[in-house]
């Protein structure tokens, strides 16, 4: 009997279940590290998972598209789960109604500060115009960010990278930083996470409580809609 050892590895990495396998495995590894370290911020399961998968793909020369296709069934779950955010939103609807005026003021102030500071720093540091434009939509959930960036003339793929980077950074640093500067209201914590880090921030916010999660989902939705309306209009005047 002749055993072909060399065939084992490609059989594993080419299998359609490989992408789901490393996604679950690396996520579980991240959860293990996170729990063992007593909740160390940089060991957020999603951060660990993305790093591990990135390393595995790069070191084995697997293109991202191949991995994404294999893991796409997970990605599809995002749709119904986004719809499910209506549940915490409804449960907290009384609080949201009560704070509506203050929420809208915060949306305008916070959203402007968030987008303005990123573009300003890039401009000061001499970033090229395409990159500055691609930065405009960085705090908006991915599908909206893609359409906005196409509209104002940046690179959509680059915008997606920024969206994810700011999302992961917000998850890792956000809760710690908000505590440090004395943001104690659950509504304010959630809203800050949602404005800054969209869906990734909302996923983290849900772990911090129902109200935090609801306000983050609300901020994510409002930020997306406000950016989609305001950014193409602003771009007309400044470009």
């Amino acid at each position, binding site marked *: 009997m002749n055993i072909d050892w060399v065939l084992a590895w490609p059989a594993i990495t080419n299998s359609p279940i490989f992408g789901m396998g490393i996604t679950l495995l690396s996520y579980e590894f991240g959860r293990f590290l996170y729990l063992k370290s007593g909740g160390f911020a940089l060991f957020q399961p999603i951060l660990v998972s993305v790093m591990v998968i990135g390393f595995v793909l790069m070191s084995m020369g697997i293109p991202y598209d191949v991995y994404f296709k294999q893991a796409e069934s997970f990605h599809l779950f995002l749709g119904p789960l986004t719809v499910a955010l209506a549940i915490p939103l409804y449960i907290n609807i009384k609080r949201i109604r009560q704070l509506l005026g203050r929420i809208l003021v915060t949306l305008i102030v916070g959203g402007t500060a968030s987008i303005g500071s990123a573009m300003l720093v890039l401009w000061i540091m001499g970033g090229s115009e395409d990159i500055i434009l691609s930065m405009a939509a*960085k705090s908006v959930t991915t599908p909206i960010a893609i359409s906005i960036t196409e509209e104002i003339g940046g690179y959509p793929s680059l915008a997606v990278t920024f969206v994810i980077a700011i999302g992961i950074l917000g998850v890792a640093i956000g809760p710690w930083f908000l505590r440090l500067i004395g943001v104690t209201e659950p509504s304010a914590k959630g809203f800050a996470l949602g404005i800054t880090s969209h869906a990734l921030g909302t996923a983290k916010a849900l772990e911090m409580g129902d109200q935090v999660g609801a306000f983050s989902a609300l901020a994510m939705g409002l930020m997306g809609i406000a950016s989609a309306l305001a950014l193409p209009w602003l771009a007309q005047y400044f470009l």
Partner: protein
Amino acid sequence: MIRGFCILILFQLLGEAVVAMFHLIVPGQVMGMILLLVVLIAWQDVPEFLDLTGRALLPYLPLFLVPVSVGMFAYWDLIKRDFVAIVISLLVSLFVSLAVTGLTLNALVKARSK
């Protein structure tokens, strides 16, 4: 569990339809969330089967965000030229955004409740 999941998928599909019909820029799933919220407000309660599905699935939201997040590594060639400027601008805006948003709403909420 399955019944709740069907409702979620149904509302996402409804959302996709509304977005297409009215040429909106928001994703179908966000429209689906808005539609479900409107229905829940009208119904004035969350049916138990829907609540069950939400509670079971929402904790896994970060897991389902992993595949799209790995895409960050796919655009290294585009980023590398301005890498330092990009990292600094993301970090600055992260702190500015969290601080301005968090402190503003925190102060506004506390001001009224006193």
